[in-house]
């Protein structure tokens, strides 16, 4: 599918991103920092959807679990950042397993609904216990990753590079191929002797791990956690749109889509309310006419 040429293109793009702090303002860096955390969540979603074939409508459930675990530990147990991140990852993996159980039994729309309900429940819980969680207003963390734009940018970019590399490598490995086969035709994959349940379970855990970490890193960057910034369905929808826009089943496409969405939203900010309208109509046009997304366009040109 994506040959070595695209790999080198991605490498070149990464070099540009790493050189960026020497040329642009702190404002742009701040924007991209958020985009990189979103990118990790979107790539994690693509592993589940593009490869395992599971339509997860609630990526923000996993992201939110990680974010709030880190926040609560940091605020109430005064835990340092690193243990908070580890706990966030563990909590998200547990959440991923909770989602994986119905996913192995249910199909298509039913599983989609379970994930949607998971997000709504988490959001309700956060708002109900707003005395502890800060609810919709948000809860300020005691620690932040860094106060300097450049350092934050390096953290985010490094995190995205490592996560992206691992997810991409995994998707190209033999395990990734088996996963893809299980997603496309579970019966046939099982008939070939592959353990479909085991591979899907692993995919859920890995996807949850990166989503939870992304959520935790994001709140440590922002300094506050609120239901609207990490749990809301609208946030989850952004990850999904990003992955489909960039090109599903490519992992890297999800990162490109996320950066595009955040930057486009910022460029169109003068339009006010209409900016979301323009971005979503653009995404709709891409879905209708270029179902392969940005990377699909690239691959199509070559073929």
């Amino acid at each position, binding site marked *: 599918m994506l040959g070595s040429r695209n790999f080198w293109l991605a490498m070149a793009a990464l070099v540009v991103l790493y050189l960026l702090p020497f040329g642009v303002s702190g404002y742009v860096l701040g924007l991209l920092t958020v985009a990189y955390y979103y990118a990790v969540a979107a790539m994690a979603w693509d592993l589940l959807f593009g490869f395992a074939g599971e*339509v997860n409508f609630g990526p923000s459930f996993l992201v939110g679990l990680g974010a709030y675990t880190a926040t609560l530990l940091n605020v109430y147990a005064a835990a340092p950042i690193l243990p908070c991140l580890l706990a966030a990852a563990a909590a998200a993996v547990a959440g991923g397993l909770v989602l994986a159980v119905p996913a192995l039994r249910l199909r298509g729309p039913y599983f989609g609904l*379970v994930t949607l*309900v998971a997000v709504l*429940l988490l959001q*309700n819980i956060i708002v109900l216990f707003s005395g502890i969680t800060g609810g919709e207003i948000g809860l300020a963390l005691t620690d932040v990753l860094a106060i300097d734009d450049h350092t934050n940018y390096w953290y985010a970019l490094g995190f995205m590079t490592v996560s992206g590399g691992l997810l991409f490598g995994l998707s190209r490995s033999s395990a990734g191929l088996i996963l893809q086969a299980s997603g496309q035709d579970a019966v046939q994959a099982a008939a070939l002797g592959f353990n479909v349940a085991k591979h899907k379970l692993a995919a859920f855990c890995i996807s949850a791990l990166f989503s939870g970490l992304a959520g935790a890193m994001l709140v440590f960057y922002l300094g506050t956690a609120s239901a609207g910034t990490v749990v809301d369905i609208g946030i989850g929808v952004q990850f999904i749109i990003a992955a489909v826009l960039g090109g599903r089943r490519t992992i890297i496409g999800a990162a490109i889509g996320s950066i595009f969405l955040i930057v486009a939203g910022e460029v169109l900010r003068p339009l006010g309310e209409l900016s979301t309208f323009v971005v979503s109509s653009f995404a709709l046009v891409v879905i209708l006419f270029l179902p392969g997304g940005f990377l699909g366009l690239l691959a199509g040109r070559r073929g």
Partner: protein
Amino acid sequence: MLGLQILIDGFAISALYGLGAVGFSLIFGVSGVLNLSHGAIMVVAAVTAWATAGDLGFGTYGGALAGVLAGFVLSFATYFLVVRPIQGSHAIPREEKEIFVLTGTLLWGIMIQQAIAYLFFNTPKTVRPLVEGVVNIAGVRTPINEIVTLLVSWTAIGLLWLLINRTRAGKALLAASMNPRGLTLLGFEMANIHCVVWAIYGVLAGIAGVLLGAFLGVSSDNIGTLTASAFSIVVLGGLGSVSGSLIAAYVVGYLETVTAYLVAPSVRSVPVLLLLVLVVYLRPQGLLGRR
């Protein structure tokens, strides 16, 4: 007294939920489409009714009519601009059509939501009720509007039942939900059947939207919740089963009303979500669904 109040309020809100969910269920049963712009279509109907009745001065009935018409037109727009191009696309693999329709209608819903927020702001709007006033039912003061909502909802559902079970076009719809290939072999054009079902859906969503606007008021911020509640009701009842959706609408409507009155209005949706998780785990096909 409280019991009777819950009984009356729950009955009216459930009828409205039922009307909203029936169209959603019908579309899924006949064409296999889960329309995630459902909430947006309902809100457009309500906002159109509000604007034509108020600012444009067409009166309450003119506004209601315009609202239903808006639902109808938007339903067709959804079908021809979003759903049909995806279904007919050669570039999208067959097994991925479903997720593309979901993503496409979701984006379409967001576009409509933003357009409403831009044109009319996201403040809540309440449509003037068709009949104003209050009646006293055994000591419970009930707005006449609540009774009108109930009657209109059930009339619309009754007419839908007659249409499906007693007319030739309706029987074709029923057949299409059971075996589309068989129907094609009998010489029916599936494209026409899909047009009919989206037309019916548009009218139902339009009526439900206008009633909702008069009963609870709507704002563009409600769109996600409205879609999610129709989706949950339909899954609870069994995807594609119209009578299942009606029963589920009553379960959800009463569960919410009881929670709102006896516990707190802020937690009204929590028991429904828990019930939904339970049903999906134990009986994935829903109350009356086929596997």
